[in-house]
């Protein structure tokens, strides 16, 4: 399929339109990138100087990175099938960031253990979530919802409203960049490349997809379904922990509502990115397109000088319209 497309592309002009359509229909994630590109151009209508254009792209890459890291985790969870969503991502992010930053206490020598603590918190949160799902057979949405209440309380209790600053070195790293790319984007890129390899190239990835398409068939076909779900939920929480850690380092400290917007964001990037919310059919590239799109919308509306109310309203309308447009019509009215 890919080979054919490549060959066709070599012929000039004539078939390019049809190729394009073929490409679009075959790759659901194209839409997210198209939308992001259109939004970027629409913003540039206002931001005319070239320095602004570069800065906007840089900022978009930076802020998209956090969404990508949590989005990848959420994508694997959503892939598991209907009803699988992790709503504890914001709470896990906050808890991991709070505990690790508190532990480091601005001491640059403790960065490595700090990262390990963030990962550890993610592991524990994921284990807790999955034990609720497997042992108590609570539907994942409610399980992660109720555990997020617990994580949130823990974070409030340990944080006490104080904003702990990250170590200087860490703050420099997370706000800096190399090769003209922000460091956080490189982390997110690494995460997404790994996720892509796992999903597309390994048996484990096929197992996740198979589980999402038909759990019973997968189990009968020899897929260790519960082990797959276990790894996916724990992995998602670990990624949330890492994202919380990086976000807190980037934004100069952990605070209690730092994760709030990532509840919507993590789900939105998965779906706008062209993965099926019903599971069993996911892709990694779309997450990047959708994450960039989500940031660029907000900055576009900002640069048009709109107030907070209008901005929120339009963001909502645009998300809904993208979802409506990207859907394939299923029911006759």
């Amino acid at each position, binding site marked *: 399929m890919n080979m054919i497309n490549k060959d066709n592309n070599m012929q000039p002009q004539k078939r390019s339109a049809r190729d394009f359509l073929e490409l679009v229909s075959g790759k659901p994630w194209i839409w997210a990138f198209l939308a992001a590109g259109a939004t970027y151009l629409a913003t540039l209508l206002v931001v005319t100087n070239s320095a602004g254009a570069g800065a906007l792209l840089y900022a978009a890459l930076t802020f998209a990175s956090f969404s990508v890291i949590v989005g990848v985790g959420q994508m694997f969870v959503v892939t598991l099938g209907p*009803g699988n*969503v992790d*709503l504890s991502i914001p709470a896990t992010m906050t808890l991991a960031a709070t505990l690790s930053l508190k532990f480091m206490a601005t001491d640059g020598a403790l960065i490595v253990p700090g990262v390990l603590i963030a990962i550890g918190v993610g592991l524990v949160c994921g284990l807790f979530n999955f034990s*609720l799902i497997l042992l*108590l*057979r*609570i*539907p994942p*949405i*409610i*399980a992660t*919802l*109720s*555990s*997020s*209440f*617990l994580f*949130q*309380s*823990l974070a*409030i*209790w340990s944080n006490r409203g104080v904003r702990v600053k990250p170590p200087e070195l860490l703050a420099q790293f997370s706000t800096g960049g190399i090769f003209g790319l922000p460091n956080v984007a490189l982390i997110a890129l690494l995460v997404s490349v790994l996720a892509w390899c796992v999903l597309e190239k390994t048996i484990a990835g096929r197992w996740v997809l198979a589980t999402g398409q038909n759990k019973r068939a997968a189990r009968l076909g020899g897929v260790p379904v519960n082990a797959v779900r276990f790894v996916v939920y724990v992995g998602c929480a670990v990624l949330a922990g890492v994202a919380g850690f990086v976000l807190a380092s980037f934004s100069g400290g952990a605070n209690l509502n730092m994760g709030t917007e990532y509840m*919507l964001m993590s*789900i*939105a990037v998965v*779906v706008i990115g062209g993965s099926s*919310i*019903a599971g069993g059919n996911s892709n990694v590239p779309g997450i990047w397109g959708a994450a960039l799109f989500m940031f660029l919308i907000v900055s576009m509306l900002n640069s048009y000088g709109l*107030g*907070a*109310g*209008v*901005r*929120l*309203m*339009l*963001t*909502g*309308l645009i*998300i*809904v319209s993208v*979802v*409506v447009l990207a*859907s*394939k*019509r*299923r*029911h006759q*009215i």
Partner: protein
Amino acid sequence: MNREHLRILLPVLSLGILLAAVFYMQPRAMSYFGLNLLFNLAVPVALATIAQMMILMVNDIDLSIGSFVSFCACVTATFVQTDPVIGYGILFAAILVYAAMGAIIYARGLPAIVVTLGMSFFWSGMAVLVLPSPGGSAPDWLRALMTAKTPILPVAIIAPIVIAVVMHYFVKRSSLGVLLRGVGGNERAVARSGWSVTGLKAFAYGVAALFCVLSGMALVGLATSADANIALRYTLLSIAGVILGGGEFTGGRVSPIGAVIGALTLTLAASFLSFLHLSPDWQIGAQGAILIIVLAVRLVFTRREALV
């Protein structure tokens, strides 16, 4: 005792145990005034929970309830108070928007979770536009209604009972209720037998919106003012309330009485903690813990149910 009764038993028991614990620790709560204080804020939560139940009944989930209730509260505290005609017009239009959303979600086969998440931005934005900074005031009649001194039982007890009974008859006894639960159970079967599933979904969403409007109004009646974030917690509380009350995510298996009891239980959980002299840090956590405990106990029940 049939399955339906078994299903409602657990929510009733959990509310009873919690209430007994509260009364044990603070006997003075066992009075007209005490009950009113304990359950005062339960009325808007119960209304929002019923709204969420309508959506879960048709196999969807609504993550925009919190921001929509906030929006309704903002409209109530501003337009309904100053220009009632415009105010009610806005609320009515909002209900139509909700119904249209339900129709579109079904007609285009969209994931409700994403559409409602997107719409939550929309409603938050509208709320900010209507009421940029906290304020406004409650219409007098609303204030009077929510704080009325009714004989024998306080409003905070009467209102949930009325809501539960009315909705019970609508959902469990009326033919429309059966159809709506049918959409949750097997939408294709409902469509094949000649009903418009699009219309039914739109109707379910419209009823949900109506209850959100009532919830927002009740909230303003109690709080006397509003702000754009006043009810954001309701999204999660309403889902938790329905599930606590014995509802399921799929299959149209919901219970209005259970949902109201679930909402009361969650509200009571917060009061319970303050009686325990636990730090407010743990309030949210305790709601989570109660949810987990009840669901764990339900596991035992459902196992037995499977045997029956």
